[in-house]
């Protein structure tokens, strides 16, 4: 079974009563299933469908609409690099390629395909705008924002992403290209340089 007993109970007792129709409980159910397993196996679609009176195809179709639902197993850490204009102009493409190279992945830009390292530790993919342009180029690690992560920061970033976390970091004004100077005070908050192995 793809779903734990606890998850089933939560779907039945908490999610379904919350909405006027059972189908409306589909999204939280999918999130719950993915939280448990890290991804959504075909059996999860069957089981959620059974609980919500939906055909498994319908469930899988909804899951497929959203790129944040994974229909294949992914690495332990998911790294997503924004490729939309602000980040792109701030050099996100170089960041993306550097991350790929560092992790031994094919550095080409093949649409939205996700690549996973052979040891299963990392999955990397480009992503659409994360609405955090003031930290461009933004890299999302397991749904948490990090930035700016420039090409030269990649080793330090991979060694300890938390240093690049935007949490607690003041907002920066829009930057216009990778060479733009950060606002005053930025350097003080920047993570100390990390020696790379």
């Amino acid at each position, binding site marked *: 079974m793809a779903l734990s007993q606890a998850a089933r109970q939560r779907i039945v007792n908490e999610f379904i009563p919350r909405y006027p129709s059972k189908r409306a409980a589909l999204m939280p159910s999918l999130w719950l299933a993915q939280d448990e397993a890290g991804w959504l196996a*075909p059996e999860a679609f069957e089981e959620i469908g059974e609980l919500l009176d939906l*055909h498994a*195809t319908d469930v*899988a*179709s909804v899951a*497929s609409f959203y790129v944040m639902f994974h229909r294949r197993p992914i690495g332990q850490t998911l790294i997503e690099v924004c490729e939309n204009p602000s980040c792109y102009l701030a050099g996100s493409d170089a960041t993306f390629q550097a991350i790929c190279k560092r992790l031994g992945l094919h550095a080409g830009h093949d649409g939205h395909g996700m690549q996973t390292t052979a040891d299963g530790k990392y999955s990397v993919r480009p992503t659409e705008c994360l609405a955090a342009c003031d930290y461009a180029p933004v890299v999302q690690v397991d749904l948490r924002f990090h930035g700016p992560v420039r090409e030269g920061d990649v080793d330090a970033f991979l060694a300890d992403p938390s240093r690049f976390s935007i949490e607690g970091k003041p907002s920066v004004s829009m930057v216009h290209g990778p060479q733009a100077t950060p606002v005053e005070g930025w350097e003080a908050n920047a993570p100390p340089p990390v020696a790379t192995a």
Partner: protein
Amino acid sequence: MTAATPPATVTVTVDGTEVSVPPGTLAVEAARVAGVDVPVFCYHPKLSLAGACRMCMCEIGMASPPGQPPRPPGLMTACTTRVSNGMTINTMAPGALKAREGVIEFLLINHPLDCPVCDAGGECPLQDNSHAWGPKESRFTEQKRLARKGAALSPLVVLDQERCITCYRCTRFMDEIPGEAELAFFTRGYTSQLRTINEEPMKSRFQGNIIDLCPCGALTSETYRFKARPHDLDHADSVCGQCPVGCNVMIDTRSNQVARVRPRQNDAVNEIWVCDKGRFAHHYSSSPNRLSGPWVRGEDGLHPSTWRQAYQEAARRLGAVKSAYGGAAIGVIGGRNLTNEDAFALARFAAEVLETPHVDFRVGAQSAVVNPLAPFGLDAFNTGLDAAEKAGAIVVVGADVHDEVPVQWLRIRKGVKAGARLIVANPRATEADRLAFHRLRHRPGTELALLTGILAALVESPPVDAEGVARDLSGLAEAIGGVTVEKAAAHAGVDSVTIRAVAATLASSKDPIVYVGARLAIRHDAGAIGLAVGNLGRALGHPARVNFLVEGANGRGAEWAGLIPGDGGLPAGEIVARAASGEIKALYIVGENLLETHPDAAQAREALERADVVVVHELFPTLTAQAAHVVFAATGVMEKDGTLTSVEGRLQRVWQAVRPDADRAPDWRILSDLAAAMGAGLGYVASADVTRDLLADLPAYAPQQGVLPGSAGVLVRRVHDASAGSVDVRAVPAIEPGQAGEGLVLVTYPEIVGNETVVGETPELLVTVPEAYVEVNRDDASRLGISDGASVEVRGPAGTVTRVARVNGRVPIGTVFAPENLGTPRINAVLRWSHDVTYVTVQPVPVAALAGAR
């Protein structure tokens, strides 16, 4: 402000023409009323609204409130905009034309424009709309999207993803009409892909309809693919000859061969749908395996012969039996799949030439009662098929409506979605259970007890009318004697609480409809069940909303044509039994493979071997035909002109679609010629002669006054004996104790598509037929050591067959199910006709036997 009552109609102006339409009408439909066709792709009147394609853009203006300046009109989708009073709909506004042109240009960006190799070419809305509304040139010079081409969604339906314009008609159909959402769009936007989960083939028995709905050639038929161009086809209006619903179809032929079968719109019958059996199982018509010419048994088996010899031989042998033993030594069986003309000729032949009362189309029938509702002055079927969509409650007893009357199941679904409460009583879980408000899982063979229990519950708390007055059901209390809800419930193996709940639901529902399975109408207790069902209708205040289904494509027509036991006549099952015991000396079998359909294969074999003469009309060299003395090669329903009468009593015409080979003749002609060879005469030379006679002679068709209906058919209402209608209630016989036995009770009825002869000629359909199985309850299976998918032996009173076990919860503990029309030999090999309830044992096939088989 006081709320104004909504007007009965609203007036709108479409391209300068004023029309009045009901409030809530869609702008696209209002335009149709005004005679203007707004181009659409995603909109379909039988489906929910999507507003997905934007093709129907019109400039629509709303009336302003009095004293306010006029509002400027805007571009709106006519397919999702509902009309309001004073609305102006301008379908040809420059803005609308520009919008449509843009939509077409966008749609064609990724459409491959491979019309020269596309089946839809010539009958394609995308082609037509592009031609009528699209830009002359595309500005798109980049690489088109590449996607799956020629991908099988199932063995029957082929997908070309590149052609798809994502109108969602197919997915809406699957979700809304048969309720089998096994097809969906995956991912989104430009990468949207039509798929099933895990690429599993679609399983629905209604999937062929998405081919008709597809507006662009993305979905095509595997059996019709690359076979013809629409302009090459000849068309004949016809009626499907696969089940008693009588779906209206159009048969498209090319070079005198059936290329495809499509549904024809008839909102009273099939709307615009047809099931996959009706659509795809047509290849039998041009099969090389068909019988050709007559065959006569010599000393060393059947030999081809001339028609003259065959008539003489049949006449000689039948004449010998008749003169030695009298006409009553001849039994006539079959005719449920024939046209009315054939059935009428057969009835006349039996009565006037063979002079036998032993005639019956109802194969396996135990009861001579043909219409169980006759004591109430009713027909066997009294509610029009389309009434199901407006019913307040629908009761289905002893029928798997999905498998036995498939397209009517779609209508029942429609009714349930509109609020009808569905009550399903069946020993096995059926598709209908998914929508059921109450499910009754009674013991096989206890339908009478179940119905009587519902009557007893109604007597306890009768329906109450609008004034709060309870119906007086004291007569009914008397009629059912001392049967209590508890007693009936215990006998039927159902919870008495559920029976009371069913009665309460029925009592409080408007316009209930009762459907009773065809197999209950031929069982030994058919008369009693008819009384219970008739009383149920009366108790609910709807005496004429009770219906018995019928078997065979033209079972009702055969009944009305007189293919039923005459005075002292025997039911079909009894005819076979008497033939097996030697009392009946001759069998005349028309279009019926008794060895597979009589519910006792051994007895049928005995009857065929023992009879002095067996004459068979057939399309194929079936086992029964091979056992005959004289075999006549007959024509199928697509090769004839004539009429069929559907389960509801709708007289419908079939026009000849295929000219038959010279070596095959319609049944009425064979009978007429054979009668002449026997020195009598039916006197028919043309099909129209028979039609004229049957309209004139049969009381059922008296209201027609000799006039044939047009393509839509006509619902014939029979004239009833008014005095019979005055009977309030009829005594229901006391519940008989069931036959006790050991082992598991076997339930059997046909699946919608089995490996029947006609299906076997369509390999694409045949591969969707499951391996012959027996369904066993999980608990029984674990007790007996049977695992899902294992080979098991089903041993019944008459024999043993091997089946694949399906272990699930669809059958209750103590019951097993095996479909009638799957497997060789058929499950009838284990049945004894004389047993009302068949007890079987199911056990794993010994390992040694399996090894030996290899």
